[in-house]
């Protein structure tokens, strides 16, 4: 048996890939041949050196990439199983896209709302003012017509507050006053609808201070009650 033949069998011998008879022959040859024995030993050392080579650990980023890849592929496969799964997948994707669009606005909107409420709560005490219970404050933004010229009458009329007295009027008229302060029309609310000529004249000659709205003269209505002594009551 030649050394070349034996040395070719050494590698399979290490892997137990030679039949038992051949194995015995090769081992017997190596006992007598120093060169083949040395060859065997060096091959054995090489094999143990190869087996002892450290297995390098995978880089962490590669592990991460593989997990992402697996996740994508898993979702892709599930989405293709049935039509319902496809629809679900599509719906999930749309939901995710909507979430991704809206999420950046969530924090600014919430913080904006919160700060507005906080600011309002801080400012409300300083904005509040005392109220007089029930009564309206005159703002002078809108005024009613008022009598200005009553001196021509012999029996001077007296303006009264209709609320403070409880008079019994013979006639109550509703006058429409133009922005120039003239009586434009009248309507009898109470009493004889046919006014006497004196009364008509007196009404037409009256000069009123016209009603105003935001400082500008405008159309207004005045209610006048009179008795025989010509006591006028003007009511807005």
């Amino acid at each position: 048996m030649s050394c070349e033949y034996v040395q070719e069998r050494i590698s399979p011998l290490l892997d137990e890939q030679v039949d038992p008879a051949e194995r015995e022959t090769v081992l017997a040859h190596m006992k007598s041949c120093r060169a083949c024995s040395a060859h065997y030993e060096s091959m054995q050392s090489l094999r143990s050196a190869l087996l002892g080579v450290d297995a390098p650990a995978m880089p962490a980023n590669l592990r991460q990439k593989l997990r992402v890849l697996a996740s994508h592929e898993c979702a892709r496969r599930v989405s293709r199983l049935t039509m319902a799964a496809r629809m679900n997948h599509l719906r999930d994707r749309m939901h995710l896209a909507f979430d991704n669009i809206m999420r950046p606005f969530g924090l600014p909107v919430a913080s904006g709302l919160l700060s507005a409420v906080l600011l309002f709560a801080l400012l409300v005490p300083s904005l509040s003012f005392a109220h007089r219970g029930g009564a309206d404050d005159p703002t002078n933004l809108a005024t009613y017509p008022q009598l200005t010229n009553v001196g021509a009458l012999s029996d001077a009329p007296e303006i009264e507050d209709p609320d403070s007295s409880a008079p019994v009027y013979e006639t109550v008229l509703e006058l429409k006053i133009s922005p120039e302060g003239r009586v434009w029309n009248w309507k009898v609310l109470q009493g004889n609808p046919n006014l006497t000529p004196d009364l008509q004249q007196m009404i037409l000659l009256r000069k009123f201070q016209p009603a105003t709205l935001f400082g500008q003269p405008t159309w207004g209505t005045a209610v006048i009650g009179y008795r025989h002594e010509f006591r006028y009551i003007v009511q807005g």
Partner: protein
Amino acid sequence: MATSILDLSAERSAECAADNDDLRLVESLRRGEERAYEELLTRFQQPVYVLALRLLEDPSGASDVVQEVFLKVFRNVASFRGQSTLKTWIYRITVNEAHNARRWFFRHRRREVELDTSPDDTRNWKENIPDEGRSPFEEAFGREQHVMVEAALEKINPIFREAVVLRDISDLSYEEIAEILGVSLGTVKSRILRGREALREELAGSLKSRPALRLVPKTAE
């Protein structure tokens, strides 16, 4: 004799269990079960990375190859018929991808200059923790030995390297290697023999005075 028969039957039952396990895993992958994807990665990501790294000796290239391999596995798992084991199927894809990457590298990237930082910067902190179980001398010697083996692996013919890596690092049987490489059993034996001889020569040349490796130089008859 009885013992050998028992051993044989135990081996067969183990193989059957492994096959059933593979088929169960593949079926779960087809159904898109998330746990199956996790299990596949847990079982194969590290061995596939080591194999790709040993075939290419380039960490970034190996990372690309591993991603390509798992992408192909996930996409083509439906076409896996169970004619081979899942392991050999995945390893075959890895070997083919590494082969393609090597060809691409020689065509495109041979003249590129590596600008990456040292590998220590990209490694996990756990890898940098010293192993207190070994003395500094052993550590240094072991590291030096590994570096020499890795360097020798790089120098040998890629065809032989594939066979040696699959046998001595991935610890596969001759039959599995034949299936992965798509060659006959005799060719596998021949490639492993030639690869080991080439490695032995490379290492004998550089480690003549290293008795710790127990490498004895050839003497003339």
